[in-house]
């Protein structure tokens, strides 16, 4: 091997060490960059060459072929899926935590006001002619109606907020899918040149992770780049093309999600903030609202039946106790109000006498009688309380479990792709040593060149 060939190997070695140092430098610089995947230099020894004839071969140095990002696609997919689950649980938890205080067990809640109404009726039974006691019943009835109105308003307001959330989520999804699709041609170009996607893939992975926070997506890697679809297969990104989702207001006043063809895909969206919001809005809150309305309607009906079974203080047949406010229609939690406002209209008497209380037992019996839905009014409310508590507790548990799982997955992913400062520090020394050694070889070769060059001169002298 000639000195020139040796010098060539030393220069390659210098370049390789320098490149490796560059990769280490970049890793350290991005140690805290979210989504950054550490890069490692890919070094390859050169094919051996024969220097003194057959059988006497030696390596021809090293080549830094490329920088390779250390990825684990499976772990990344798991992180994205778990992120989607966590976001969904958090969206549900956030909504339920706002609903939870409405169904308390303390004051001004439905249960307390319902009990207060029965108590006021019981008080009236001790002195049916007392105008103060009669006014207390009217007041307690209105307080209960107000409590039901408040609970209903809280639920419907939450649904309205979630409608806004759905619109915002869809808008963000459309922005993200556009950005993801825009990165694909650049990544494809690098890969076509045999290079690693590197930071561009990192950026795309981060965008997909952000997308996972909004909705659950299926990811497929194809020759043309990444393909992203929703749970029901609606395409969001295919290669360098993105497909926008749309929103529209449905007949029920809820914001629906449509795919690029205008097909309603609301019910098929799962996971992420969007999935969690839709599930909370259309399933959880809707179910609670139905039960609340049933309770309000059946309770009002029972009270009205009791009221119309007796006579008021003027000896007239009782008229409805509760009614639907506004346009009327069926009584619900949202529209229930007092039908009577004159205390003398309370039908306490069963015989038409102004001081009779014989009909009040029909009111108080409602407290211990099952409504058509199968539970007493108090138990029906207790059941609602249990459901709200249970739903919130489950969402809390799901969020906590998801957070814990995500932490573990991120730890695993970080163990593969994350930057370790300690490791990079060691690499720094390793590559620095390698560079110094290569430089020493160059220096040595320089001395040898000098000796070689001086060989003829010394002989001539």
């Amino acid at each position, binding site marked *: 091997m000639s000195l020139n060939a040796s010098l060539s190997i030393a220069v390659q070695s210098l370049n390789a060490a320098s490149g490796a140092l560059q990769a280490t430098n970049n890793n350290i610089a991005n140690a805290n960059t979210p989504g950054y995947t550490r890069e490692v230099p890919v070094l390859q020894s050169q094919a051996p060459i024969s220097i003194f004839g057959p059988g006497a071969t030696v390596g021809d140095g090293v080549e830094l072929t490329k920088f390779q990002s250390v990825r684990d696609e499976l772990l990344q997919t798991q992180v994205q899926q778990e992120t989607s689950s966590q976001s969904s649980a958090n969206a549900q938890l956030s909504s*339920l*935590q706002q609903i*939870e*205080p409405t169904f*308390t*067990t303390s004051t001004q809640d439905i*249960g*307390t006001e*319902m*009990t*207060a109404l*029965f*108590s006021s009726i*019981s*008080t009236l*039974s*001790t*002195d*049916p*002619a007392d105008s103060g006691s009669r006014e207390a019943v009217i007041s307690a009835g209105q307080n209960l109606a107000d409590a039901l109105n408040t609970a209903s308003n809280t639920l419907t307001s939450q649904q309205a907020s979630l409608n806004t959330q759905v619109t915002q989520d869809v808008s963000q999804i459309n922005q993200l899918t556009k950005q993801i699709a825009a990165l694909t041609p650049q990544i494809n170009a690098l890969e076509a040149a045999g290079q690693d996607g590197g930071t561009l893939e990192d950026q795309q992975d981060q965008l997909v992770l952000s997308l996972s926070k909004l909705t659950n997506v299926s990811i497929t890697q194809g020759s043309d780049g990444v393909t992203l679809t929703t749970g029901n297969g609606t395409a969001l990104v295919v290669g360098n093309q993105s497909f926008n989702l749309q929103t529209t207001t449905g007949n029920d006043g809820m914001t629906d999600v449509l795919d690029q063809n205008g097909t309603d895909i609301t019910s098929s969206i799962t996971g992420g903030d969007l999935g969690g919001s839709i599930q909370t809005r259309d399933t959880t809150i809707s179910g609670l609202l139905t039960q609340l309305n049933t309770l309000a309607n059946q309770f009002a009906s029972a009270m009205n039946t009791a009221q119309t079974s007796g006579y008021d203080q003027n*000896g*007239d047949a009782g008229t409805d106790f509760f009614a639907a406010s506004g346009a009327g229609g069926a009584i619900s939690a949202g529209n229930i109000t007092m039908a009577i406002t004159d205390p003398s209209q309370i039908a306490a*008497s069963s015989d038409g*006498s*102004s*001081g*009779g*209380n*014989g009909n009040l*037992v029909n009111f*108080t019996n409602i*407290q*211990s009688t099952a409504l058509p839905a199968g539970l007493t009014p*108090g*138990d029906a409310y*207790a*059941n609602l*309380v*249990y*459901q*709200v*508590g*249970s739903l*919130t*507790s489950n969402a809390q548990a799901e969020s906590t479990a998801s957070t*814990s799982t995500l*932490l573990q997955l*991120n*730890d*695993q992913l*970080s*163990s*593969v792709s*994350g930057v*370790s*400062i300690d*490791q990079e*520090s*060691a690499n720094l*020394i390793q590559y620095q040593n390698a560079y110094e050694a290569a430089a020493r070889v160059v220096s040595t070769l320089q001395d040898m060149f000098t000796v070689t060059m001086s060989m003829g001169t010394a002989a001539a002298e």
Partner: protein
Amino acid sequence: MRITSLLPDIQYQMQQSQQAMATAEQQVSTGLRVNQLSDDPAASANMVVSLAESANIDQYTSNVNSVLPRMQAAGSALSSVVSSLNSAISLGTSGANSDLQAAQMQSIAAEVQSDLSSVISQANTAFNGVYLFGGSETTTPPFVAASTTYNSSQGSVGSPLTAATPLTAGSVTTISDATTGQTMTFKAQAGDTIATLQQAVTNAVSAGTLSAGTAATINAQGQLSIGTNNASDGIVVSTDDAALGTMSADPTTAVSNAYAYVGNGAVNSVQVGDSLSVAMNLPGNQLFTSGANVIGSLTSLITALQSGDTSQVGTAVNSVSSALTYVSNQRVPFDGAINQLNSEESYLGQEKVTLTTQQTSLVGINLADAATNLSQAQLDNSAVLAAAAKVMPQTLLDYLH
């Protein structure tokens, strides 16, 4: 496993331990284990039921406290009635002595009349504005001195009422008869006239509700006049019909010792337990004018004493004795109800304690447990922070020079 950074795990652990500390702190400060529904959904639901039961207990207790003094006042009034009846029996017994002079008999009659007044006063006892013996008519005295004739304020010579004068639909006119002890109630329907009312009075006479001879007529002053043609039969009339105005007794027709019952026979019950209701009143007609008629027997005794007929006095004394027995018998279940209320009050007090204990166990926390939990949470948090402080600064760079 290759570890790149401990920071996310440390942050998570710090967050967890701080959350645990906040929970423990809240439990100590509130004394509650369940501060929101999600802390224990089942306990929260049970709390709703328990609070409703507790409110019911409070209400039952309030009902007992409201009704018991009233019933005790009624019991006290009945005791006074019993005393008056005993006095009347004693006086009547002495009046049955044939050796007494007429003046002495009149004097005894006056004393018995005083007893009758006392009975009427007790029968009109009110407690906190509630008349105790009017049935469910509790706002006016149930026993009213009767007259033979009542006239309407509407109608005059110049503008007389007639049989065709329309009545106000929904208005109510009542005629309470002191002799029969019954009340006729007429509720005017649309299209009714005074003639309709007149026919109703006739029908009530036929039915025995009103004494024979009771009629509704238009008098010479053009007013509606409701009255009897028997000087000893008294009635009390009232109406809220604007077409008739106020029905007022003709002051010249007052019937001595005749009292009409203007209450009703209704018994109001009040709930003082989940499955316990007590009758909180005895209607005055049941006590004083039906059965062995208290007022009637005293009136008979007065009449007998005034007549000086010792035989009649003896018979009347027997009637008063029967009335005394009758009132005493009526008191038995009433006094029983009072005793029941006293017992119920004690029971409700115990129930309240039981429910409070139940509620504490449902959502409350023992202070010692809460303090221990807080201490443990603080210790855990300190451990996490100490571990973080030890681990976080350590890198290879610390050892490279």
